[in-house]
């Protein structure tokens, strides 16, 4: 994803990244932890945190078990570890 490192200012002038060039891991940060959660006559929303957790763990496991990630492809998945229920970032220096 070196284009992100070198083209920040250019991107600002151009506007948005084409959706297909967005790394899935960055997208899932936003789609699974962002966006408004509305209640009401829902059929279903993955705002249900348990469902998200189940899924996130499954994502992680499927990445580990599947073939090596192809270098040209955005990495798939969401930040988690199989041995933790919550996914707090590592705090350096503690």
């Amino acid at each position, binding site marked *: 994803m070196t284009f992100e490192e070198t083209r920040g200012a250019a991107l600002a002038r151009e506007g948005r990244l084409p959706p297909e060039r967005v790394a899935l891991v960055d997208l899932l*940060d*936003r789609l699974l932890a*962002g966006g408004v959660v*509305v209640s009401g006559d829902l*059929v279903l929303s993955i705002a249900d945190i348990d469902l998200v957790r189940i899924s996130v763990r499954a994502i992680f496991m499927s990445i580990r078990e599947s073939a090596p990630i192809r270098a040209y492809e955005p990495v798939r*998945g969401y930040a988690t570890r199989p041995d933790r229920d919550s*996914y707090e970032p590592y705090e*350096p220096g503690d």
Partner: protein
Amino acid sequence: MAADPGSGTYLYAVAAEEGQHRGGALPRGIAGGEVRAIGRAGLVAYVSSVPLDQFGEEPLRRSMEDLDWLEETARAHHRVVEAVAREVAVVPVRLVTVYSGDAQVGALLEERYEDFARALARVAGRQEWGVKVYAASGDEADEPGERRGRPAEAAASERATGGRGAEEDTAGEAGGAGKEPERPGTAYLKRRQQHIRGREEAWRQAGARAERIHGALSSIAVASRRHRAQDPQLSGRPESMLLNGAYLVDRERGEEFARAVEELREPGGDVQLTGPWAPYSFAVLDDDGGPREELT
């Protein structure tokens, strides 16, 4: 099937009616559905129909475990939100929010008009930027043969080793009076300790650098939020992520923000800019129990 009980209404985003999307056709939505606008009470909801045999509760529980399905769905959701956000202020909705029908979405717009209006006012004229800061590779395990990519575990086990090393070291000195001041093993342990201390110091500095960057960028942004660090195995980078920040920035300050990111780069660690994004990380209704307390 006259009432089409087999379909639901998938909600992507909500915008204000006066800024209604006027551009060309919106992209196809989830499952190839045609995206349409439902206007009510001065708001517009962007929706498409989805088959409930795929988007009912039980099918979704299974589908969410399917990475290919999740990627396809996430990208389709994103395409629609982006297309709307290019033209109007928009409040994106959480992935996979499905209503039983258009009438329920219309009712939502009426009932929550005030909340959506406030949420729209917060993000209007603003864009989200993402900034990820990685530890320099030198901040991590740098001995040959040591595992890379799991510095948290590596550091923990190193600390444990360091603790034992210190005890042995003391015992060695107490029992070693009159002998050579440093046996080879002791010297090795001391080097290990220095190495460990050096690395912990490097970690502290890396963490402090991430805090400085977050602080500097937050001062340009109108709001900021920290996402969880991405696991090295998922980010595709061996270094640990020290900061996974989201920043809501006035549109006219976007260039300034991108420049600030460039200037915050240092030799000792990588900084990545992504965006601009639709304001996913800052789309919050006032009473939905969302991350409002995290917003600064």
